[in-house]
C-alpha cells in the first residue's frame, strides 16, 4: 500500500511539474535510463530528447493543464488518463485526451507509454495555416 502511495505521489509530482514549469522537478522524475514511447510513431524517445521537448513546451506555451486526472497504481507503475489543455502564444487553447502508462523503478519513471489521437491534432495545435495544411 505504501508503494502505491509513493507511485501516485510520483505521478502527481511529474504532471504538476509540467504545469508549474518546474523543469528541475520534472527531470528528477525520470530515471537515467528513461525512454518515452508515443503511439503516433511507435518509437521510444530517449530521455534527453523528451526532456528537451518538454522544456521547449514550457518556454513556448503560456499555460499547460492536465484536467480530469484519473490515476491508478499497479505493481511497478501507474496509469493516468487526462485531458491536456494547452494555451498557446496566440491565445488558442488546445486540448487532447491522453492515456499515460508509466513504469517505475526506484521511485522514478523508467519507461512511459503515451497514447493519443493525432487524427484530431488540430484540436490540440489549432488550425494550420492554409499553405501548410495543403502540403
Amino acid at each position, binding site marked *: 500500500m505504501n508503494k502505491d502511495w509513493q507511485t501516485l505521489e510520483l505521478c502527481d509530482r511529474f504532471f504538476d511539474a509540467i504545469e508549474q514549469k518546474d523543469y528541475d522537478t520534472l527531470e528528477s522524475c525520470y530515471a537515467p535510463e528513461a525512454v518515452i514511447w508515443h*503511439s503516433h510513431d511507435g518509437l521510444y524517445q530517449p530521455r534527453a530528447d523528451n526532456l528537451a521537448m518538454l522544456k521547449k513546451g514550457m518556454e513556448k506555451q503560456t499555460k499547460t493543464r492536465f484536467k480530469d486526472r*484519473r490515476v491508478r497504481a499497479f505493481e511497478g*507503475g501507474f*496509469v493516468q488518463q487526462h485531458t491536456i489543455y494547452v494555451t498557446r502564444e496566440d491565445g488558442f487553447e488546445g486540448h487532447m*485526451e491522453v492515456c499515460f*502508462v508509466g513504469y517505475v523503478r526506484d521511485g522514478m519513471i523508467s519507461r512511459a507509454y503515451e*497514447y*493519443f*489521437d493525432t*487524427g484530431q491534432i488540430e484540436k490540440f495545435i489549432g488550425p494550420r495555416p492554409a499553405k501548410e495544411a495543403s502540403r
Partner: protein
Amino acid sequence: MDEYEIRELCNDFFDAYQDGRVDVLRRLMADDCIIWHNVFGRETTRDENLEKYPDSYQGQRRRTYNDRIINTFDDGFVIQYTLNGVMKTGHKGALWICIVARCKDGKLTRIDEYMDTSKFAAWMGGPR
C-alpha cells in the same frame, strides 16, 4: 475481484473480441457497462457497442489482439496491445491501442479506449 480474476476477465474479453463471440462479450460486460472511445469523445452503452461489432469488421478477414501487456489495480486493469488485422485484400496492418477498464463482480463496468485514427488508412491498406 483479485488480480487473477481481473486478469482472466481481461483475457477472456479480448479472446472473445478476437473470435467474434458477441454472446461471450455480452456476458462479460455489465448491463450498464459504458464504453468510451477517444476517437469519438463520447460514451456508448454495451448494447450500442455490440450492435456495431459486425460493422467494425468491414473489409477485414481476421483480427488478433497481440503483445498484450496487462497490469491490474484494485478495480480494473490497463492493457496495452497490438491489434493485427488481415484485410480481404491480403494487406496486413497493425494498430497500437491502450484500454483502461473498470471491473466489478466478474464483469466489465467501464471501458476507455485510446487509439490513433491517423493510422487507420495505413491499417486498412489505403493511402498513408
